[in-house]
């Protein structure tokens, strides 16, 4: 292909060429970063919780007029109310197992604290989520024990909601164990949840994610501690595993049975996220990642609009150039250029413009990513996004230019003889 005539023609349209180059560059920069945002959100959304999420639901309830003190009598009273609830739920035909638990992964309501390796350590080694459950959480939540053992019946206990007792034994996630004991010898070691009392690690589960999906929890999302303690408060939360396929029925039964056992309580069976008290885990997950899913969709819509506009812009501008150069095309055809030559001419011309655009765009894309990293503490974008983006935009350019170029190639040599 002969480049000089193309370059000469482009020089005559400096402004138009500059604009379309700039447009391609901006499109590349924005699309790369938007797709990067989409992918990182999808990665977040797809993070497992470590639980078997099917047939699992959470029921929250609040006792009306329950004791608020933390004297042994009040705590005993609250605990017996909670044990009654647990027995009521366990006896339901569609319930497989149930535990009282303070919160669940992705549920947002977060209990967390620093964890140290020595007593009186001022700066904690790492941060972790605390899951308090007086029952077999591994079984009900479907966690995977990868080392050590589960709690035994005599290790389960209970305490007042704001009581101080620390558990002598805990189960931690693999991520937390590795963070605290990088040599992989966490089992049997002691950790400090409160600077004074040691807790021995007796088991390690593969995964259990934090309740919060907020950015503040990003650094310790996989750090969780399972504590074999039932919390006694004026409210309680129950994680319930229904028999396969019976979750809806179990949800209905559970509310009815709890009211039948004790009507002086609050269970809100309907309403928005802040006031409803019964949630399937699927809806907890959906709610937790709503913002991420939304952001991904929004970025996707913007990408589609951008690519359409840029594609259409190329079609429009090339059509215009073809219209303007009909006479020249006719002359070239009359002088022996084939249709194919004309087609190739416009395609090469577009390749040059788009090529310049993507070079500039690659620089802009990286710059935009750096800026987003600084402003919004985003991650560094892999260059693969830019490479794929370049290919997509070059293909888009070739695709967009094809129809007008084809029209150009059909210009008859007779045009050369027409004056206007």
């Amino acid at each position: 292909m002969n480049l000089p005539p193309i370059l000469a023609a482009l020089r005559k349209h400096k402004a138009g060429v500059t604009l379309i180059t700039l447009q391609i560059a901006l499109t590349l920069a924005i699309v790369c970063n938007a797709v990067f945002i989409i992918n990182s959100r999808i990665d977040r959304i797809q993070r497992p919780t470590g639980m078997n999420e099917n047939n699992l639901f959470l029921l929250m309830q609040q006792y009306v007029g329950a004791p608020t003190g933390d004297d042994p009598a009040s705590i005993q009273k609250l605990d017996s109310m909670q044990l009654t609830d647990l027995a009521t739920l366990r006896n339901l035909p569609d319930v497989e197992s149930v535990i009282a638990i303070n919160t669940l992964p992705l549920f947002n309501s977060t209990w967390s604290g620093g964890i140290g390796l020595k007593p009186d350590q001022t700066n904690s080694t790492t941060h972790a989520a605390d899951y308090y459950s007086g029952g077999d959480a591994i079984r009900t939540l479907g966690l995977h024990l990868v080392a050590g053992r589960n709690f035994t019946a005599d290790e389960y206990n209970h305490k007042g909601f704001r009581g101080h007792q620390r558990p002598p034994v805990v189960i931690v996630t693999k991520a937390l164990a590795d963070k605290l004991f990088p040599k992989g010898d966490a089992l049997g070691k002691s950790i400090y949840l409160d600077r004074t009392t040691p807790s021995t690690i007796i088991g390690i589960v593969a995964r259990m994610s934090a309740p919060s999906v907020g950015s503040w929890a990003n650094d310790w999302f996989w750090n969780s501690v399972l504590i074999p303690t039932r919390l006694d408060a004026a409210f309680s939360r129950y994680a319930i595993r229904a028999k396969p396929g019976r979750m809806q029925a179990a949800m209905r039964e559970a509310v009815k049975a709890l009211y039948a056992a004790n009507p002086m309580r609050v269970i809100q069976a309907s309403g928005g996220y802040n006031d409803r008290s019964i949630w399937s885990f699927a809806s907890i997950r959906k709610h937790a990642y709503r913002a991420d899913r939304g952001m991904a969709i929004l970025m996707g819509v913007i990408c589609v609009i951008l690519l359409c506009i840029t594609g259409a812009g190329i079609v429009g501008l090339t059509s215009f150039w073809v219209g303007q150069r009909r006479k020249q095309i006719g002359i070239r055809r009359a002088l022996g250029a084939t249709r194919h030559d004309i087609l190739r001419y416009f395609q090469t011309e577009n390749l040059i413009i788009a090529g310049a655009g993507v070079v500039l765009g690659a620089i802009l894309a990286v710059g935009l990513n750096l800026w987003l990293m600084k402003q919004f503490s985003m991650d560094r974008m892999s260059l693969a996004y830019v490479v794929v983006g370049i290919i997509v935009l070059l293909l888009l350019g070739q695709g967009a230019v094809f129809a007008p170029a084809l029209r150009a190639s059909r210009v008859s040599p007779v045009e050369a003889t027409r004056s206007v």
Partner: protein
Amino acid sequence: MFAYYLDLALRSLKRNKALTGLMILTIGFGVAASMTTWSVFRAVSGDPIPQKSAELFVPQIDPWGPTARNVDPTQPGDIGPPDALTYEDATALMRDHRASLQSAMYQVGPSVVPTDPAKHPFSVPGEAVFGEFFRMLDVPFKYGTGWSTNSDASRAQVVVISSHLNDQVFGGGDSVGKMLNIEGHDYRVVGVLKHWNPQPRFYDVVNAGTFNSQPDDLFLPFNTAIAMGMTNQGSTNCFQSPKQTGFVGLQHSSCIWIAYMAQLDNASAVRQYKTYLDGFARQRYPDWAPNVRLRGLMAWLDYEHVVPPDTKISLYVALGLLLVCLVNTAGLLLAKFMRRSGEIGVRRALGASRRQIYAQFLIEAGMVGLAGGVLGLALTAFGIAGIGWVLPRDIAALAHLDWSLLLITLGVAIVAAMLAGLYPTLRAAAVQPAWQLKSN
């Protein structure tokens, strides 16, 4: 002349319908994307109490000392005091009463027992506050008023309820004087609010979250709530575990869980209050240099990052899209205008001045903008209706189409199109009449 240019512009736009349509679509989509994301950003970054925000301040006092600073891996680099107060600090500030109006507060979620025994009790979101809260924040009452300082001191069992709760429990109407059963105790209703749900929930962002489409349903005296053992619903942040257990233990601990707001009427009051806070911290925490902050409401909201970063990112990306649309329109207008060099040459030769050429082509660009704006407006309405599908509901609910957004959308579209038309117009006006006439 204007009418003539309009006519010319219309003719020209009609001549190449596909190109015109493309430009209108481009402007329409660009404007709609920016306006939709901007409507969300505007809603979340707005001033929740514009008439008063300059006078409202949030004090912060460091109860933990230097060893606690920087230990929280979740907030690296932040050496300021934590963002809530301990119970003892908050109540001491209330006792000193140095601001013109002030209130300590914490979030509660007690259950309300309906008088009809057939109905189940239900829990309601609320806030335990001091009587000055209502006057300080211009809270609008439908019936009755807040409570007096005496009621605060005497731990009176009084309550102010939202109109929503009033409808739910009493079937609406003036319920002042009626009794409301909260957690098994009777509280006398002293006030019913008009609808009041400022966004963000600026008075207690630490505990109540930032955006919440469900308003607080009841407000009761802080001291009463404490005396009744009504526990806090929001966050509790401890550097050291409380020495005593239970809710009472929390009150005597260095854990932070109380929000605080003070009204300071002028700059000298702010200075005095700052000095007072320094003295207060020095006296209460003699082991370390006073580490206090006194932020104005808007600075406080900024410090608390109430604007979700996603809304900013989407706004910037949408503005990027608008920029691409501008460049695209500029390219298309340039092509269109230059194609008419002959026409321009004739007009110039017949005596049209450069200025008249400017006017003619800018009007044409403006018309593309107007049409794009109308399309953009429709798409923006569509976008705002659909934004609830992609954004968290509490935030999406805040975005709405109003007159100002309508005018701004049209304005942005026209200005954008004319901006895009500026360079093409300059080029068009630079056409040399003689050269054009000769060339054909």
